[in-house]
């Protein structure tokens, strides 16, 4: 029996060329009995970890390799024989990557020569431009290492003749011939995919692509006996594949990951250093340095594990980064499994006291589990870049790189690009991709195709949909991870190639998070979080205005007013618990202690919702149901084995860790299996394996004495977690920030609102709602003014106010004003500006920017209203900044005749405020329409909360938010607002279907419906909706002459109205 190793395979990590996943290729190679396989992607090793993993699981011999496409056109397959050769290969690729822009690699034959030691090369003859028999000896001489010549069957009619000639030429040059399959896909059915992705790459339609397509489906993996038949004249070419296989002994498992030592001196090991630090710092956490004995014991235990696993340098690195942030006054907080350790608490990587939430380190890291610890650190979103550049500076680009993120096809992008290739019109593509709600759509059912107005039986359409479905999950390109850093002691490029990122000053490695996990390479996630910016700004303002120094650590814990505020769902702006779903949960869950907040943060997630865990938890919490822990039939063993896992949540699993623990404790999974289960559910491609796991899970639980129903619910919940994993360790860190922001909002609403506005864009609500909420809490807000405001929103003294301060809106609230221009304005404001011209002369701001200020009505302190200011601004001239013209600064222009402009009615001012700043302090637009609305019997939003449950009511409001959560089965949630408050509207699917147009496109809605009170939350369940958006037009036309205003509406469309309803009031925020 002849043996054969396939040494030329392009996987789909040769982006938009190969048509099979590395895993598929390895598994097929194993299935057809090949002796070994090498994935040779073009100038990249991005796919080799996946192949390595698949090879390990399926016990296949795998050779890490790559294909080098040189600038001169030559292509070589490169097989490193040992670890040193592999390091040379990755360094070579790094050199090529760093020369080129993102996604390209420029290499020359001379580069290859310099790094060729220990690497076996195979030349692809079709890439040689000159005569092979003269070029081959030259290339061999230049490379000065083992060189083979590849021969593969092309099915173009002349194969026997061509291969004979190759064999002859190779023999002449003393270069051995090696047979390859030049593989593009694992099975012939993938030819269509190969064609389609080729077209995507070349931006061609399938009809135009012509000879770019595959002539036949032959480039699939073939078994040894078939290769033997094809190469019957050249048996040595098959033998040589085995020779290369034998020579290559390198496995990725050999990559010893070496963490930066973080050594302070030579005499002290990282472990000792860490221990010293921890023991000295933990004292600072306790009053008078009295560390409780239990803490000491746990700490010693944690340090022992860290020592055994050799993780000390990792903790030291995170500590160093956090230290840098702290000295530079950048607020940060760690989260993730290892972050909730006492070590991290001592090092101030986190301020969550692990004792307080009862999170045990061992639950995340133990001797048994091989998974590396995970610490994510969130930094202020405006200052994270400083931290990133610090890391590059400290470790150098040779030792630090950002993790890659693999961008893969999702339902929408797949339909879009395959549709284009298959020649569907833009319209059709748009309509089809529009039917996919959410990014991970499944196959589009026929009914949806019909709904979009197409015939699902149309052949071309069917083909398109099938192909699009097949390429979902295919890698498209590498991008940079938001902040995952890999740091190494020895040069990083000896482990993995580094490439340039699209962003300047960033370098990225070729592997993603999963690859790193698989090789047990540690990474530090340096993430950004808007709320941290907001909290830091709040602390600074409190210090400046109230002379009190607060930090995340010293804000009072268990503050009753704060929890009371949370009970009322008064949480606009509060981190994590401000969404409508969270708001409706708060009065039911009524958090009273910190751990309740941890639950609160985690419970409104697809995991617990899909697993149907929310209501049981609430019932148990409210005491409506017995807090029963799931028990198993005692005949099978200890009935209470899940107590430890589920006690804290009254027997209802809510966190990702709990679900995993159930798999381990109750279903008998090994930790590795549990993890595989989670991963396999995250990547929906492996639907086959999910089924296997489901069986194992449910059988595991029932055979160990649990009820089938409970087992099934647990499994469903893991499904939810897989997509939107929310672990307890993260929830705890988020709860900390939720508490801090709630406390700020409760006690310093003026500061909190100001900081929130100054940290935009972030969070769930627009500035208008933040300001409105602040005013409802007694904060005084003042208009933007050129003589008072700065770029940022400010607090200014206001003796009449409860807190003694008022919020002055800043220029950043005005659409279209740049920060630089705002600063120029404030820098030149040594004395007040007297009018528009004065401002123009002194600041030299572009007239267009001054016009924006006028449109924001910011000239009031000059005695000019919006319209007068605008008239003045329009009279300015943008004079070039030349010395010759500087005399022109003095006012010597002709005095122009006073022009009497009509006064702007208040309602129009409000509309203009909305246009310029998306908010108005003057009035709410609806207040002008109130008489008409009242006449129609429409209630105010604030009034309906007093009506009894089940009462009928009609309200009108501006649509703020439209939501159609995937988990809510077609129900639409609307938030509408009038001058008195907001109303939460629920539109059931049936009503929605009937009044789709009204729901989707109205700015001003009138809703008639039935009230529903539940635990302090009021919903209006819509029966009938009507669009009253055109009413808003009256605002800008001036209500006083209503009859005349209607005359102004054109009788015919092309006349158009100067203002479209849609420009009048900003669009709602829509979430799917």
């Amino acid at each position: 029996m002849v043996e054969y190793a396939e040494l030329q395979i392009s996987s789909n990590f040769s982006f938009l060329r190969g048509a099979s996943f590395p895993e598929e290729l390895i598994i097929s190679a194993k299935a057809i009995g090949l002796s070994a396989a090498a994935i040779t992607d073009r100038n990249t090793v991005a796919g080799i970890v996946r192949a390595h993993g698949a090879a390990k699981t399926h016990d296949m011999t795998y050779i890490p390799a790559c294909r080098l496409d040189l600038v001169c056109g030559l292509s070589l397959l490169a097989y490193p024989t040992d670890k040193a050769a592999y390091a040379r290969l990755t360094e070579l690729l790094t050199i090529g990557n760093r020369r080129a822009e993102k996604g390209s690699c420029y290499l020359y034959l001379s580069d290859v020569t310099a790094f060729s030691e220990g690497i076996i090369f195979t030349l692809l003859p079709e890439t040689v431009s000159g005569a092979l028999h003269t070029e081959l000896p030259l290339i061999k001489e230049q490379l000065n290492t083992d060189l083979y010549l590849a021969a593969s069957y092309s099915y173009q009619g002349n194969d026997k003749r061509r291969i004979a000639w190759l064999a002859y030429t190779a023999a002449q040059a003393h270069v051995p011939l090696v047979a390859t399959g030049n593989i593009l896909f694992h099975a012939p059915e993938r030819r269509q995919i190969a064609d389609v992705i080729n077209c995507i790459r070349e931006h061609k339609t399938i009809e135009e692509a012509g000879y770019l397509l595959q002539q036949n489906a032959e480039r699939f993996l073939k078994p040894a006996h078939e290769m033997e038949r094809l190469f019957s004249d050249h048996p040595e070419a098959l033998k040589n594949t085995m020779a290369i296989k034998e020579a290559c002994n390198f496995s990725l498992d050999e990559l010893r990951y070496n963490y930066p030592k973080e050594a302070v001196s030579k005499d002290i090991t990282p472990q000792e250093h860490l221990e010293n630090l921890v023991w000295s710092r933990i004292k600072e956490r306790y009053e008078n340095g009295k560390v409780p004995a239990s803490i000491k014991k746990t700490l010693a235990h944690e340090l022992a594990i860290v020592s055994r696993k050799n993780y000390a340098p990792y903790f030291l690195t995170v500590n160093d980064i956090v230290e840098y942030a702290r000295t530079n006054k950048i607020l940060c907080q760690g989260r993730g499994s290892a972050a909730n350790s006492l070590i991290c608490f001592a090092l101030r990587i986190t301020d969550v006291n692990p004792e307080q939430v009862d999170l045990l380190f061992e639950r995340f890291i133990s001797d048994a589990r091989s998974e590396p610890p995970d610490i994510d650190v969130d930094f202020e979103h405006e200052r994270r870049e400083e931290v990133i550049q610090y890391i590059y500076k400290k470790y150098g680009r040779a030792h630090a790189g950002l993790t890659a993120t693999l961008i893969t096809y999702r339902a929408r992008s797949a339909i879009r690009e395959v549709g284009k290739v298959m020649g569907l019109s833009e319209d059709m593509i748009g309509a089809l991709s529009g039917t996919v709600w959410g990014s991970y759509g499944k196959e589009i059912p026929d009914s949806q195709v019909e709904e979009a107005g197409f015939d699902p039986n149309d052949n071309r359409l069917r083909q398109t949909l099938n192909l699009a479905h097949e390429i979902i999950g295919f890698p498209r390109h590498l991008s940079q991870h938001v902040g995952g850093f890999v740091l190494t002691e020895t040069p990083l490029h000896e482990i993995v190639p580094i490439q340039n990122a699209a962003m300047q000053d960033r370098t990225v490695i070729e592997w993603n998070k999963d690859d790193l996990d698989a090789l047990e390479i540690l990474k530090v996630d340096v993430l950004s979080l808007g709320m941290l910016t907001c909290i830091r700004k709040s602390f600074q303002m409190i210090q400046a205005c109230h002379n009190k120094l607060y930090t995340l650590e010293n804000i009072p814990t268990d503050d009753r007013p704060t929890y009371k505020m949370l009970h009322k769902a008064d949480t606009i702006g509060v981190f994590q618990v401000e969404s409508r779903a969270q708001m409706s949960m708060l009065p039911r869950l009524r958090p009273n202690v910190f751990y309740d907040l941890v639950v609160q943060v985690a419970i409104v997630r697809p995991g617990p919702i899909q697993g149907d865990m929310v209501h049981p938890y609430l019932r148990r919490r409210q005491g409506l149901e017995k807090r029963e822990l799931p028990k198993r039939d005692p005949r099978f063993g200890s009935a209470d084995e899940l107590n430890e896992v589920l006690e804290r949540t009254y027997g209802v699993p809510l966190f990702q860790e709990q679900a995993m623990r159930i798999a381990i404790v109750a279903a008998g999974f090994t930790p590795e299996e549990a993890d595989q289960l989670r991963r396999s559910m995250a990547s929906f491609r492996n639907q086959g394996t999910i089924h296997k796991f489901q069986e194992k899970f449910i059988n595991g639980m029932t055979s160990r004495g649990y009820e089938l129903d409970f087992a099934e619910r647990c499994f469903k919940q893991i499904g939810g977690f897989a997509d939107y994993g929310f672990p307890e360790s993260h929830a705890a860190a988020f709860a900390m920030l939720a508490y801090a922001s709630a406390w700020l909002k409760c006690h310093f609403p003026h500061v909190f609102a100001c900081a929130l506005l100054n940290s935009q864009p972030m969070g769930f609500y627009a500035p208008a709602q933040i300001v409105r909420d602040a005013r409802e809490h007694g904060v005084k807000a003042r208009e933007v003014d050129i003589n008072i405001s700065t770029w940022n929103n400010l607090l200014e003294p206001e003796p009449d106010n409860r807190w003694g301060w008022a919020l002055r809106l800043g220029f950043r609230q005005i659409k279209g004003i740049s920060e630089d221009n705002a600063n120029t304005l404030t820098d030149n404001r040594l004395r007040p500006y007297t009018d528009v011209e004065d401002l123009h002369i002194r600041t030299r701001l572009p007239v267009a920017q001054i016009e924006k200020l006028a449109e924001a009505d910011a000239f009031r302190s000059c005695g000019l209203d919006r319209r007068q200011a605008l008239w003045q601004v329009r009279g300015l001239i943008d004079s070039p900044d030349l010395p010759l013209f500087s005399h022109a600064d003095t006012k010597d222009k002709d005095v122009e005749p006073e022009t009497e402009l009509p006064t702007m009615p208040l309602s129009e001012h409000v509309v203009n405020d909305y246009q310029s700043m998306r908010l108005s302090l003057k009035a709410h637009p609806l207040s002008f329409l109130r008489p008409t609305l009242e006449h129609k019997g429409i209630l105010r939003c604030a009034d309906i909360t007093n009506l009894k449950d089940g009462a009928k009511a009609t309200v009108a409001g501006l649509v703020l938010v439209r939501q159609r959560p995937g988990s809510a089965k077609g129900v639409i949630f609307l938030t509408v607002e009038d001058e008195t408050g907001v109303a939460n509207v629920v539109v059931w699917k049936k009503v929605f279907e009937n009044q789709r147009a009204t729901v989707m496109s109205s700015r001003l809605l009138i809703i008639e419906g039935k009230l529903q009170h539940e635990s302090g939350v009021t919903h209006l369940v819509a029966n009938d909706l009507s669009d009253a958006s055109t009413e808003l037009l009256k605002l800008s036309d001036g209500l006083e002459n209503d009859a005349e205003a209607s005359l102004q509406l054109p009788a015919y469309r092309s006349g158009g109205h100067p203002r479209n309803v849609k420009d009048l009031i900003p669009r709602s925020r829509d979430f799917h």
Partner: protein
Amino acid sequence: MTLAEARAIHPVLHVAPSTPEADQQKLEDLTRWFIRYTPLVAVDGDDGILLDVTGCTHLFGGEEAMLDSIKTRLRDSGINSQISMAENRRMAWAFSHYIPGTITKNPTESQAILSNLTMAALQLDDGMQQMLFKLGLKKAGQLFDLPRASLMQRFRGKDSKKIEALITRMDQAEGRRDEPIIPFTLLPEWQVRMAFSEPLQLQEMVSTAIKELLLELTDLLAEADKGVMRLALYGFRVDGSVQKLMIGTNKPSRDQKHLMRLLEEKLPDLEAEFGFDLLLLSAEETTHLPPEQTSSAKAHAEHSITEFLDRIGARLGPSSVRKIKHRQSYIPEQAQTFTSLQTNELHWEEYPSTLPIRPIRLLLRPEAIHVMAEVPEGAPKRFRWRRVEHLVAKAEGPERIAPEWWINSEDPTRDYYQVEVKSGARLWLFRSGLYPIKGVRPSENRKQSTQPQWFMHGFFA
């Protein structure tokens, strides 16, 4: 709004593609129809028609009656309309859009009505209109009251053009500046005409007249370095009807003889009946044609081929004479298509040098052959084609060509072989369908019983 958005709102939306060119054509047709009311008609934008009815109204019984007549006629042909009449086109536009049915007869009255209309009635662009709106200037009349200089100062720089246009509009609206209607007729690029006091009835006479017209036209074209691509002859008959002949050329030409020959091919189609009193020869489409030396033999040869093509094109109809064009396809019989004579890009250079050579002649359809001695995955040893038995001496192959999956081809994959038979002929055979190989591919043919079939497809030189 995109179609997808519109569909999200209203899923049963009826969608038809927009055809602005067809719309414009329709509007032009309709405009032409209005010549019954006045000779001065023009298309106004993409949805309006402008008529200068000065001095015409009395023919239709006065302004009101004329408006009614137009309205009724339009309604009868299924067209809704908004019509107004005023003493200049801007006023008429404003009234028809905002207060249709208005008829004004004197400037003061019009001015008063216009003053009360919205600013949009002045046909301003959106940006300008919004700015004026913000300044509280919402009615056209407010603008007339404003000092012009102040207004001009407010719209400087890139807006200056707009304000100029605005002032012009205002003047036009006030009737201060006259804006002429550019009447609507479709003028061909070049045309010559000849009128006859005695109507021409005989074909020879027509033919002589055409020759003279052609002489005149080609002189004009030569002066302008133009050649004709499409030429029309209009014969205006004494009974008021018009006859039309149209010829086209494959290359621009101003060769009288050639063009005459083409026209003569068609001349019998012309029906003179009571005779023509006017002949009009019009070059409907021309392109640049510099003067060229006619003596070079190659140019002459090319010339005569084109002229020949023009002539058989004119005789057989242009769609009957075609060229062969390369099409990028691996399927041999689909690698070429027919195309019109005018096409010069035949793309034969795109055939890649890396692909194997193709036979010099392909059979129109592959012909089934009977293979006697078959070798799996190899060329046959012996086969019969058209009742003649052939012994294969040499063979090379296979070249494997899979069907074009995107057209849902049901054809099996083909394996092509070049074979040389004992008699010396080199033939191109293929087997339709692949042999199943254990562990590599299952049988491609769904119906297991059908054996792979062999075909003869072409000849090599």
